């Protein structure tokens, strides 16, 4: 008989109350060139303001994002990661964002399994026309990461 194992993965991250008062998180944003990067440009041209914590890396397609990039970001410099691509069905490369979505779900499960809080890495669909949405997404991710505090788990210097 098939047994379903339902376990709630609990973050083993400890609240870091010792975060300095002027601490600001670093968020690594990896955006696809055709939709989300163009959308983030539109946020700029529309002069919509968002928190300055995100550092943006341009890739051709969200399917270019290797889970390695996410893990390396968390390990090296970032307190959180945002991956963003074209809406399903709108991929410039026909189907890349579907691969990205699947790969991301697996990566996220793995990260949760090893103890990261699920909000540390987030995924969004932002089209080239969605400047306001990009500002909203960045604000939300920044807010989420701020609540979680600085990331110490698995940081290079702590191993």
């Amino acid at each position: 008989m098939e047994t379903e194992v339902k376990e709630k993965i609990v973050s083993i991250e400890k609240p870091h109350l010792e975060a300095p008062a002027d601490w600001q998180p670093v968020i690594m944003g990896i955006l696809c060139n055709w939709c989300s990067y163009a959308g983030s440009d539109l946020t700029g041209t529309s002069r919509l303001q968002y928190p300055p914590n995100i550092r943006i890396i341009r890739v051709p397609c969200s399917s270019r994002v290797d889970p390695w990039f996410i893990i390396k970001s968390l390990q090296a410099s970032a307190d959180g990661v945002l991956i963003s691509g074209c809406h399903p069905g709108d991929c410039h490369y026909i189907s890349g964002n579907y691969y990205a979505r699947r790969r991301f779900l697996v990566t996220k499960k793995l990260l949760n399994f090893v103890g990261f809080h699920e909000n540390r890495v987030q995924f969004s669909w932002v089209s080239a026309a969605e400047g306001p949405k990009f500002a909203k997404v960045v604000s939300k991710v920044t807010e989420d990461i701020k609540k979680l505090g600085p990331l110490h788990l698995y940081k290079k210097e702590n191993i």
Partner: protein
Amino acid sequence: MARVGVFVCFCGANIADFVDVPAVVEEAKKIKEVKYAIDYKYMCSDPGQGMIRDAIVAHRLTSIVVAACSPRMHEKTFRKALSDAGMNPYLLEVANIREHSSWVHQKDKKAATEKSSDLIRMAVAKSIANEQLHEISVPVTKRALVIGGGIAGIQAALDIADARIPVVLVEKSPSIGGKMAQLDETFPTLDCSQCILTPKMVDVASHPYIELLPYSEVLELDGYVGNYKVKIKRKASYVNFDTCTGCGACWQKCPVKVPNEFNMGIDKRKAIYSPFPQAVPNKPVIDAEHCTMLLKGKCGICAKVCEKGSIDYAMQDEIIEREIGAVVVATGYDLWDPKPYEEYGVGRYKDIITSLEFERMVSASGPTGGVPLRPSDGKIPKSVVFIKCVGSRDEAKGIEYCSKICCMYTAKHAILLHHKVHDSHAYIFYMDIRAAGKGYEEFVKRAQVETGATYLRGRVSKIYQKGEKLMVRGEDAQIGQVVEVEADLVVLATAVYPYKDNPELARLLGISYDKYGFLSEAHPKLRPVETAKAGIFLAGCTQAPKDIPETVAQASATAAKVCGLFSGDTILKDPMISKVNTDYCSGCQNCVTVCPYQAIVTEEIPLGHGSKEIRTVAKINEGVCQGCGSCVAICRSMAIDLAGFTDMQIINEIVSI
């Protein structure tokens, strides 16, 4: 040792007002690899680019970082500056400190300055891993394939052929001409459709640069822009076109009668037939589904009467292969089947017909000799109700979009009805009148004034029979009342629907289609005739509903695109594509599966140096690869990398801050 030059732009006040540019420059100078850093008011200006060119030479720089606006804006500009200074253009990185910093953090200069410095650090780190890349030169086969022989395909083929580029025109039916050949007169000038179309059809047949393949279908398309290979099935016509003179003796004697598709089934054609008198080529084909000789082996009358001996019952389908460089898809449209409108009694009442049936009836060469007749009793109708938007703009029963041409052709039908039956009266139920186009609004006015047609704004809710008449009950929204009109004939302006085989064709060609089945253009505004696949273009209603002028304009546009593509002997391609390190490749072929362009094939190489045993590895087709990087992320052995976005470059960016 890397020697990076950093050039920070003020962008007038756009960056300088919100980012402390001199501080950013000082910060950049602290990076170990940065040997030169400077700011300037407008980096993209000629003096700004001059600064970059001079510094490359003076400081022996190995890569360049420009901190300015988005790379989507000026990456090309700055790459050219590098080229001009004799440096490989792909050694440039752009740090986007305007769209991603100064414009979005206008209230926090300190944070914006810090972020800008970080973005420069990332770009510097990435640029250190940049490699020299060279645009890929791909040879071009200067021959175009046009799929579909309607007015779009005809126009595209003629325009391309006139530029002395060979064209292969494939049409699935026995004759070119498409839907336009079925029309009587065309709005807004009431030109006779046949009179303006048939000369073009003849031009196609006689053009030295056009190879016309009627009664044929595209089976396969392989390759990439400039270098496609197409397989075409030439369906067996059972008639030798080389010897047939088109005299017509065969179809006059043929005993089998079949509903005539060209006349919308109003009359019959024979099993051996030419679709209409002006058909090009004007040679008959045998309809294998209905011919008794082919089905039962009995009859053979057509072969007996054919003086030339052109009939060949043993003829087989033929596969034709051609090498081509570009494709124009012009498969046209179908008409939506109004069956879901049960309340209209579609299929129950004979005197409800579609617009194209009406069109065939009023055509002088049509089945009724140019007079509309009631299908039930063959009487001339005096009161005709036209219903617009049957299927169009109706999410519940049909489709959401507007079919665009119905308002105009219904106005035309009102005029044609008035011309053919002087004492008739047209009632037109409409939702809106959409008459945007040169001379269109005037034409609708003309229809209203000249024919006295009654335009009723509202939807029809029910049609029922009362004696010989049909009672059309609808709403007149302008008076807010239910109205009933006694009609002899009801004409439904059914929606323009995508050609039914579009999804299959799209898969075969490797292009995309929308939720309805219309083929998708690369960009709805700026690239309306290209598809996302290089070298494949769209003309006419295969993309969206269009009228004839628009279709012809788009067809000519595709011809311009094809001519542009063929203007040189080679095409230059962006070098940012995947490459395989065969030393690492395990031959798992995961990359082959994920590649959306079928750009990855396998090849067999010696197992070791000088070894006779072989192993299978992935191979990228440079001409096809578009550089998405799906294969890079899926590769377990890290054997594939994407030039311009290598793992090293991205990891450098990540660890630099």
